[in-house]
């Protein structure tokens, strides 16, 4: 997805009002972005607090600013700068966090981003979690305020086509309940259920933006009286599942069963690939199949 993001940024570079910052991250990924942006691409060095302050200053003068780093370095370390400098003034700064969830796998827990969506949502930031590579082109076009863009890996089966980008979209029909997946886990769900019988598999929804305002009415009618599954590579607190549970209660919608799978941290005390951690959390292909078969 990082390459797709870079390509989308190259296409966006013709807008002279866009500025791109990195904090010395992006080797073998952002070179084309650097070349396309010229002097509007700045490597701000290993200094995340300064990155956010400078980005806010630039945005205050009319630029749209993309600020890029490894996800946890971007949302956790300079949290106060994000809150005070960007959010209080509603500035058009897009924080681009590479490696959402366990995507940095073997690099270890310091590089994992498991609570980012909750942290950013709590500040009122628009949280975007693209599911598929082609989503990036749509998402980078539409930055008008504080935004967090969480990048991961497109996990759908090779060559599988998906509907055009929407914050919420049904990517697979089924009759055995509803499964809602945050970001790239939609691709894992597609891989899990693509060869299953229509009557036995759930309908699968891809969610790429948090917030109640973007949930389509069709979802509420689909889950009423049905089994409702929510999966996310994010801790339970403040994530998609909790947000949806809150919405269900407010709306008085009653699924037959609400089932939530989420990032459990490091239950075994050991570390490994993204696939390893997903398996430990029941978020891998086989575990998802096990929910239904």
């Amino acid at each position, binding site marked *: 997805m990082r390459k797709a993001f870079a390509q989308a940024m190259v296409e966006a570079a013709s807008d002279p009002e866009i*500025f791109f910052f990195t904090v010395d991250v992006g080797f073998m990924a952002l070179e084309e972005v650097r070349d396309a942006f010229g*002097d*509007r691409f*700045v490597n*701000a*060095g290993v*200094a995340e*607090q*300064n990155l*956010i*302050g*400078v*980005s*806010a*200053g*630039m*945005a*205050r*003068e*009319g*630029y749209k600013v993309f600020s890029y780093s490894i996800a946890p370095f971007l949302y956790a370390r300079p949290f*106060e*700068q994000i809150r*005070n*400098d960007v959010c*209080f*003034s509603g500035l058009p700064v897009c924080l681009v966090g590479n490696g959402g969830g366990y995507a940095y796998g073997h690099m270890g827990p310091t590089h994992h981003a498991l609570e980012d969506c909750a942290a950013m949502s709590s500040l009122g930031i628009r949280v975007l979690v693209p599911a598929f590579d082609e989503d990036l082109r749509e998402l980078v076009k539409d930055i008008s305020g504080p935004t967090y863009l969480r990048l991961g890996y497109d996990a759908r089966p090779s060559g599988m086509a998906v509907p055009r980008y929407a914050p919420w979209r049904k990517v697979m029909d089924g009759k055995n309940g509803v499964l809602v997946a945050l970001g790239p886990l939609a691709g894992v769900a597609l891989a899990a259920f693509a060869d299953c019988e229509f009557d036995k598999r759930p309908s699968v929804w891809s969610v790429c933006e948090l917030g109640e305002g973007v949930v389509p009415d069709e979802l509420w009618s689909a889950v009423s009286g049905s089994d409702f599954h929510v999966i996310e590579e994010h801790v339970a607190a403040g994530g998609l599942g909790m947000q949806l549970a809150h919405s269900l209660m407010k709306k008085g919608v009653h699924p037959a069963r609400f089932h939530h799978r989420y990032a459990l941290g490091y239950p075994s005390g050991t570390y490994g690939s993204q696939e390893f951690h997903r398996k430990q959390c029941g978020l891998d292909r086989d575990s998802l199949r096990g929910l239904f078969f």
Partner: protein
Amino acid sequence: MHMSANAGHVGGNLSCFDALMVLFHCFLDPEDRFVLSKGHSAGALYVTLWSLGMLSDDDLDTFCKDDSRLPGHPSGSGVPRLMFPTGSLGHGPSLAAGLALAAKKQRTGRKVFCLCSDGEWQEGSCWEALIFAVHHRLDNLTILIDQNKLQGFGTTSEVVSCGDLRTRLSGFGANVISCDGHDVVAIAEALQAESTAPKIILLNTVKGLGTLYEDKMESHYLPLTQENFEFTMAMIERNRPQ
């Protein structure tokens, strides 16, 4: 204003007030930018803006009261010339560096000024910003440091000393000028000095100048007592130019 609101931070407001008045009355062009990094000196800034007709008596009467645009630390909106909410220390230099970089990229002649406290330079983010500003040759950026040598719970040298701040700042590549922060001519000369690098003006100041708790720790947090208020007002009257 502080007396009416029973507000603290009197000391740090009085130590930077002369510099703010010189800057705003003599140097700051309408298109220039200012960042109050030491947000706890919002009162001094509000009064400076009032002296320029940008705030009214009625505005000042709301300082630190309910339904006010003038909280104890600036909100960043609703007040002329305020661009950011500040109050947590160490944010201003990066914000100012971003404004200065934008001015360069937009090829404007805008200048950017940022007022910090001296204790604030215990924040690592200030040094991150300085490294960035020097690297990008932001000669349109001037950082003023109100060096009153007292912070929240001790002197700056006792708490966590930055040693000789001038040497350290110079070592990072800034053009550092020291002056008496209560001598308006010296402040003006420092602001006027040409620089090819980011400029830092170290203002040697006295915290709580003219009050009963002048140069004392109490001036950081404690509001004025009636006795202190009357003493301070009498001092101002005595020093008023005839």
